Structures are given as structure tokens and as C-alpha cells.
């Protein structure tokens, strides 16, 4: 092959080669990934959607929450959570692995790949993962009658977008971690758990005391969940708020990627 041509091609498509590598690694865990993708929604829908849901529906005199049955109310939140979790898996652990555990990023960086391309490649792989997870989740939700077929495409876009936004923030945060002294435990307990519990996941955000509502306002999960509810069962959300939801996710995504690119480059070229 012509060398100059090869070099030019490598420089142009670097991010895709990184993504190809990440996806190849994912295939090593394909069984586990598929099991979790189907198992997780089924467990949640059975335990909370149906279990808690029957209690809620019985006590609201058939009105449900936001005017729909509890499982319908819950479904968009679970979907967004799953996409976020999937993207997080792809951006957090692999990043620490690449910088600290097996130092594979340094190996990549000694080829023509740049730190920026590595970030982009990880994001592409995270998208693939969020995409697959959202797709399986949607199928299960539909099978449970929690969403309509016509809402599926848009819900799919919102969920993947939410995953990418949170994934980008995680990637940026992890790129500063020097070693794993409990970083992931802290993130799981003090970021992911409160986000899951206080983002209007199980009940409308407005039902919480005002001094706790801010958690929802800064949480990609609430912004995506609220948006998804508008799509799924026509929750009334003012137009300006819909714009805020999209803008919040877009800013998270862009800021996360830009910070991560910068930090990757400076960490790899010290």
C-alpha cells in the first residue's frame, strides 16, 4: 500500500479504529452484556412497575401518576437510566484501564493516533453500547405494554442522547483520575445513586421538597426522563422546558468531550 495514502487515511479515521477496538473488546463480554440488557428491564418492570405499580394505581383511584398507569409513568425513566448506565460502563472503567491498569492508551498514542481521536473513539463505542441497550429495553417495555410502538423511535433517540451526554461527563471526570482509590465507589454512591433516586424517576420531581429538586435540575437523567415522558404518554411540558432539556444534554455532551480531549492529550504527551 502507498505509505503516504495509508498515513493520511490513518490520521483521518483514527477515531473509528479506536471504536473498532473497543467494540472488539465488548464482544468478549457479549453474553454478559445481552443478559444484563434483557434481564435488567424485566426485573425492574416486575418488581417496581408491576409490584409497586399495582399499589400506586389502587391508591390513586385509577388515575395513576401524571394521568397514566404507574408502569407507563416509570418506563421512560428506566429506559434513560439504562442507556446512561451502559454509556457509563463504556467510558469509566476502560478509561482507567487505558491510563492506569494496562496503559493501553499510551500504546495507542505511540501510533499515529492522538488523544483526541481516542476520546472520539470511546464515545463512538459508548454510543453503540447505549444504542444496543436502549433497543433491547424498548422491546421489553413494549412487550410489557408500557410504551406504544409509535413512540419507540423518538424514545430511542432521547435515551441514546442521554447516555452520550452522561457518558461524556464520566469520560471527562475519569480522565483526571490518577489511580483507582475508590473513585468508582464514590461515583456510584454519591453521583449515580442520588441521580437515580432524585431525578423524578419513581415519582414526579415536583412532589419532592424544593430543596431536593435541584438534584433533578442538574441531572441528565431528569432532563432526558422528562423529555421522554412528553414523547411517551404526552406529559405536558412547556416548550421552553423542552428546549432546556435538549440544551442541557447537548451542553453536557459537548463540554464533556472537549474537556476529555484536552485532558487526554495533555496526559498522553507529558
Amino acid at each position, binding site marked *: 500500500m502507498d505509505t503516504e495514502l495509508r*498515513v493520511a487515511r490513518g490520521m483521518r479515521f*483514527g477515531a473509528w479504529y479506536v471504536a473498532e477496538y473497543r467494540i*472488539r473488546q465488548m464482544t468478549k463480554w457479549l453474553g454478559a452484556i445481552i443478559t444484563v440488557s434483557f434481564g435488567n428491564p424485566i426485573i425492574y418492570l416486575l418488581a417496581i412497575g408491576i409490584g409497586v405499580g399495582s399499589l400506586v394505581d389502587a391508591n390513586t383511584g385509577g388515575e395513576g401518576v401524571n394521568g397514566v398507569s404507574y408502569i407507563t409513568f416509570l418506563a421512560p425513566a428506566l429506559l434513560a437510566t439504562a442507556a446512561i448506565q451502559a454509556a457509563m460502563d463504556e467510558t469509566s472503567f476502560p478509561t482507567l484501564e487505558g491510563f492506569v491498569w494496562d496503559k*493501553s492508551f499510551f500504546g495507542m498514542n*505511540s501510533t499515529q493516533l492522538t488523544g483526541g481521536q481516542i476520546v472520539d473513539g470511546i464515545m463512538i463505542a459508548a454510543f453503540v453500547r447505549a444504542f444496543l441497550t436502549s433497543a433491547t429495553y424498548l422491546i421489553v417495555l413494549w412487550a410489557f405494554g408500557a410504551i406504544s410502538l409509535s413512540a419507540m423511535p423518538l424514545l430511542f433517540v432521547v435515551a441514546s442522547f442521554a447516555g452520550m451526554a452522561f457518558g461524556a461527563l464520566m469520560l471527562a471526570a475519569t480522565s483526571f483520575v490518577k489511580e483507582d482509590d475508590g473513585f468508582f465507589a464514590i461515583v456510584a454512591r454519591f453521583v449515580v445513586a442520588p441521580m437515580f433516586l432524585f431525578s423524578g424517576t419513581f415519582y414526579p420531581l415536583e412532589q419532592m421538597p424544593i430543596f431536593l429538586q435541584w438534584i433533578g435540575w442538574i441531572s441528565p437523567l431528569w432532563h432526558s426522563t422528562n423529555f421522554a415522558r412528553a414523547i411517551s404518554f404526552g406529559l405536558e411540558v412547556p416548550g421552553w422546558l423542552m428546549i432546556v432539556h435538549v440544551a442541557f444534554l447537548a451542553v453536557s455532551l459537548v463540554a464533556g468531550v472537549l474537556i476529555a480531549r484536552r485532558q487526554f492529550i495533555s496526559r498522553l504527551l507529558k
Partner: protein
Amino acid sequence: MIVAKGLRKTYGEFVAVDGIDFQVKQGEAFGLLGPNGAGKSTTMRMIASTSMRSAGELEILGKDPNTHGPEIRAHLGVVPQQDNLDRELKVWENLYIYGRYFGLGRKFMKNKIEELIEFAQLEEKRNAKTEDLSGGMKRRLTIARALVNEPDILMLDEPTTGLDPQARHVLWDRLFRLKEQGVTLVITTHYMDEAEQLCDRLVVMDKGRIMAEGSPAELIKQYSSKEVLEVRFGSSQNQEAAKQIEGLGDRTEVLPDRILIYSENGEKILEKIVKLGLSPITSLVRRSSLEDVFLRLTGRSLVD
């Protein structure tokens, strides 16, 4: 291929490389020799275009690594001090993925993988996970991986550190083959024998500076004598004996455990020592090595 002038690297107050000059020509095996912390690896990283220099000039393959890093790296093969293979991928997958990073096509890689597996003598481990390989095998795979893009310069940072003698010899044999094929090699090492075996020309580094430069034979000729006599009197009597021996040879080095006497003929010096009425516990006459050059230049031995 490589031109460095006044090359310098600092990390805050710490000066890792303190203004060095050197050149590497095509097809040459060039060595950076020195103890840990001499600045060898930092120099290597600057050549590999993965570390920005703080001052001075550096040109690799006619380009400036600070502005053309990716273009230069496209033509380099890098073997880092610490293997950074992907532990979960198989041997062949590690080669494949690395080739893809360089933008190499799938078809090209298919043949290349088999060629490199043969070169690394890993035919039987083709489908093994990398984490199941021995240290020597991992090292050979890392070298094979660095050859995937048919590099103009192959850079090896401490290629045999931590390997057993047999694995080292297998590795040297592979590197010799590359040298015969005309690949330009840049090697860092703190092993004398390795530098003598592999390098056409080398620089001796200490504390970020270059102490001497030349071929192994030239350096030995310039900074040492033909032969060295090593005598031991036991740690308590070394100092005492050294006073009497002083002046018998061209030069004497007193180490904690032994005395080195440099001369053209070691046996003759030993005879003189015996005539003085001294009886060393052990004595050994050997040829001068780069170790002696280093001792002379820095007053310290290379492997602490």
C-alpha cells in the same frame, strides 16, 4: 534520521534531560546507555514524539515532533519499557488492532499477522490470550507489534530488562535479524553486554547529560585499558591492600567488595601483587567492558 541539538526536558524544577546533542543515521543501531534515572527513557519518549521537549531542537525523519507528532509516529515502531498489550485480546488480535490504528487494511493485516507471529516465534500461541504468555513471549509480541507498520525507526526501551538469560538471547537474535534487514534501531539499556552486542554506536548518559559517545570498541579503547584484574581481599582488608597496590597498573578503582586494576596485561599485575606478599581471596583477569567505561566516566557502577 534523528538530529538532536541542545535537547532539554524539564518537569517543573526537575531537569530530566539537560541539553544533549546526537544524531542517528539510517540503518544504524544506536544505543543510549546509563543507569536508571539518567534520562534515557525521557529522551526516547521525545524521539517517539509522545513527549514535548522543553527546549532545544529535535528533528525526526525531517520533521518536528512538537508540530508533526502523528505524521512522525506513523513511521515509528515503539517498544515501551513496560509492555502495554491488551490482556484480554488474543495474540493475533493484538497485532491486528495495532495495525488498524495505523490505518492498515484488513487484507494487508491478514498476511502481516502471520509473518509477525512467525518472527516472534509465537505460532503455537496464536490464539492464546496475551495474559497467559510468559514475560519473554510478551516482549517478543510487543516487538512484533511495533513492526506492524514496517517502521523506519524501531525504538526499544530496556528491551530485555526482567527476562531470564535464555529469553534474552532469543530476543537478541530477533533484533539482530532486524539489524541485518537494515532497520534503524534506537535502544536504551543499562546492560553492558546488551549494548556491546547490539549497538553500532552509543552515548553514555548520566544525570541527563551525555558523558561520551562512540562505538563500544572505541569507548573501551578511549576510556579503559585492554584488560582488567579484579582482586578481592575481603571487605575488611580491601582498603589496606589497595594502598599497596596503587600504582601497579594504569589506574585503580576501589569498590566496596573488590579492587579493579586496569592495565594491558592483567596476569603480570597479579604476579606483582603476589610478590608484594599479598594473597587475594579471589582474582580474575578479564577484558575491559562498557561497565568499566561507565565507572571511569561517572565514578559509579551501572547496576546498583
